[in-house]
């Protein structure tokens, strides 16, 4: 199973995402932002980092990279895409997911081991979780406050499209403590916390992030 990880200029957690894919048993394939070639991968991860230095707005420039034109078309036809942190911001800018990520309410970068509840295990990236499973996954960003209008929020909540929600103290001022969402079809998921940093207890707070990577591999095998 080949899963691609896109490197934009300024991507940081691309190698970590590749490592997580390999640990889950998949084959990680590095994709370059400047090419529209998806190299026959069966799913794509947009990694964390500061693509283009977060200039203009987070994800606003990366969204126009040549690789994104291929990803957007594929995603609209059900191709699995996971955006982590900056990747989530890129997905929002690309309108593959609704809403926007804005500065944390305390206006600081925040790095912490964040408790979450997985509230949707019907997506291609979360099927390996128990419903309402509580997990701990690192959160690290300066602009992770999820915002959208009331109508969108209603749709997300009523359709069960909130994939993960923050537990405990509100880390960043996200509406309804939203940590991650999915599109209607469940193939595109955006997540502010970093599951690729919770794949071994030696270097992370838990192994709770691993199911994001095993889920997609199982889904692809089952196709």
């Amino acid at each position: 199973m080949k899963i691609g990880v896109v490197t934009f200029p300024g991507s940081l957690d691309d190698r970590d995402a590749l490592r997580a894919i390999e640990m889950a048993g998949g084959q990680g394939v590095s994709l370059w932002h400047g090419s529209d070639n998806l190299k026959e991968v069966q799913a794509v991860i947009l990694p964390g980092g500061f693509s283009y230095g977060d200039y203009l707005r987070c994800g606003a420039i990366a969204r126009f990279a040549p690789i994104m034109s291929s990803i957007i078309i594929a995603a609209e036809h059900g191709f699995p895409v996971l955006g982590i942190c900056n990747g989530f911001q890129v997905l929002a800018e690309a309108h593959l997911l609704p809403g926007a990520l804005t500065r944390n309410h305390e206006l600081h970068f925040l790095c912490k081991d964040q408790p979450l509840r997985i509230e949707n295990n019907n997506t291609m990236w979360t099927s390996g979780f128990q419903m309402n499973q509580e997990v701990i996954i690192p959160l690290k960003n300066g602009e992770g406050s999820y915002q959208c209008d009331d109508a969108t929020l209603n749709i997300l909540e009523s359709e069960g499209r909130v994939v993960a929600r923050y537990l405990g103290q509100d880390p960043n001022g996200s509406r309804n403590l939203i940590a991650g969402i999915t599109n209607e079809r469940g193939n595109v998921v955006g997540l502010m916390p970093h599951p690729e940093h919770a794949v071994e207890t030696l270097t992370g707070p838990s192994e709770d992030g691993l199911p994001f990577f095993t889920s997609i591999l199982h889904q692809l095998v089952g196709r």
Partner: protein
Amino acid sequence: MALDTVSIAQETPDTAQPYKELGLKDDEYLRIKSILGRRPTSSELAMYSVMWSEHCSYKSSKVHLKQFGEKAPHSDALLVGIGENAGVVDVGQGYAVTFKIESHNHPSFIEPYQGAATGVGGIVRDILTMGARPIAVMDPLRFGLADAPDTHRVLPGVIAGIGGYGNCLGLPNIGGEIVFDETYAGNPLVNALCVGVMRHEDIKLAKAHGTGNLVVLFGAKTGGDGIGGVSVLASETFNAAKPTKRPSVQVGDPFAEKVLIECCLEIFHEDLVVGIQDLGGAGLSCATSELASAGSGGMNIQLEKVPLRDPSLSPEEILMSESQERMCAIVEPEKIKRFMAICKKWDVTATVIGEVTDGLQLNITFNGQLIVDVPPRTVAHEGPVYNRPIAEPEYRKSLQPISSAVPRPTSPEEIKSAILKLMSSPNLADKSWVTSQYDKYVQGNTVLAQPEDAGVIRLDEVTNLGVAISTDANARWSYLDPYEGAKLALAESCRNIAVAGAKPLAVTNCLNFGSPEDPGVMWQFAETVRGLADICLELGLPVTGGNVSFYNQTGSVAILPTPVIGVLGVIQDVRERTPMGISREGLELFILGKFDDNLSGSEWAHLFGEIGDSSPVLDLAQEKSLINFLLAGQSLFDAAHDLSNGGLAAAISEMVLRHGIGAKITVESAGIQLFVETPGRVIVAVNTANAEAVVELAQTHGVEISSLGSTGGDALCINDSVIPILELRAAFEETFPKLFG
């Protein structure tokens, strides 16, 4: 202003030049004239002024620093020593590790965010220049009193700058220190350490060899920021009467640096450079003269080719600009095409600005006119050397022992309130408000990070080889006795490495002091260097490089002498590292090492405004035995924690607070034993099954060991005093948000 060329300089020997404004003294200016046999051109004057500044030339410290060479221990691990951008040590399995610490103190006072940010950027480029991938950073910081208004301007900006730059580069921040003392008001210390890793064969040096090879400037375009930063900012005492120096602080662009890192690593991977140098302090003046001086000597530069952000810059300004995120490489002509292609891939501007020649002079032209014609060694390596007057400072004669005004708590209530007071004091309180603004996870190899005793990074995912790094300083001890203070700081740093389970291997240092023109400060400095050189020789640890920051002084008040010591250690299997926190109930607690009753320099005495009269004296044999014991017993410990600031009281509180598991300990003379900071002590938490083996091991190593108590419960119990963890945690965690939130 008309271009001041070499021929004009020859024709107009008596033209008045603003050398004083550029920070040069009368005799230094005369020396430049005698080297050149004429007056310098304005461009040459600009180059000499920045390169002969205290910051670049080490003119006041050189005579002392040479001890690091004279007393250097033999080390098989040292691959590249002092003099290059950073030292390199062999950590085994073909890996080489480079690390270095530098100061960015003065810019961070003027403009906290950009000063601190570009401090990170500068040290990261030093590491990159050696051919290494940067893998972690650390930031030892010192500020004025926590409740002083200016600290509230400086600290949040410094933290945001370090985070803003380091996070964007994708470098985990794994440790450091934050200490408050009133002498740092107006002179905050912002030191930055970076560590990088490479294979042995990938080491790069800053040398320009090979006639006809090309000089390539790549990275960001050159702008007007940071002009004269080293000569004006870092080499002069602040004076409130002078105009603001904001324009002298560089402005950082971490995205440009991140792209530059990846671009350089790809260039290194294809072996496309002969030599490489980053542009930091003194910009192009430094890079061209150092590359040429360390190489065969001759170099021609066409300055008009330098890509400019601001086209109005004069040649002098181009030479002095400290614009960030720039590198200078020496490339063979047949490799230039591939070099340029990689730069293009990463959208990095790269321009050939000159070539290596077979001559002996560094020649710089501007639109065909010769404006610099100098022997590069005279600029880069043969600056002035001062043997400044040294005198033991007067204050040492009036030091008083700790008085009875400093309480020695004994009753349960007194002990409880003392612990709560200590753990909520800014120097010991929880630093999460700061460290949560740093990314510690990126790169996925962080095994230990703050608040642990040392940061531990995995180098190899298959063999689990790793490195540990710790930075330490105890400025109050250095104030009481700079010779012992320096030795004790280094010993503490080694202990922190050993506590985590790693073997100390090499040393870097950042020596922060007041004005070298003050004989008392110079005495502190000389004693510090003597102490460091002595202990490095005794422990067999090479000093791989470092940095001196003078002029950390406001008026006649100098900062406490603050030698920040960084020690690098190697750990064969990072899975075996020992954390500091108590993670289980029912463990036995032991304390290693002896204590005395000298509260001088302790945090407890500091809380009552006293510093005392004498620092501890390092017991080197004991320190060595303790380190050997820790390394031999690594697999027997569940947790281990060094006793330093705040003594036993702070150490046991920190161990308890890490995972919220309590402890019950017994001490004989609580009033002293809890708060004294006698060095050479460690607490270990041990599974009962291993207790006997630990005691035996300590005795074998000649290390004093005594039972302290056991773990468990939801309180820290000291004798009959019960401190609920909830209460302790509240006191520990509320200080920073209250002050800076």
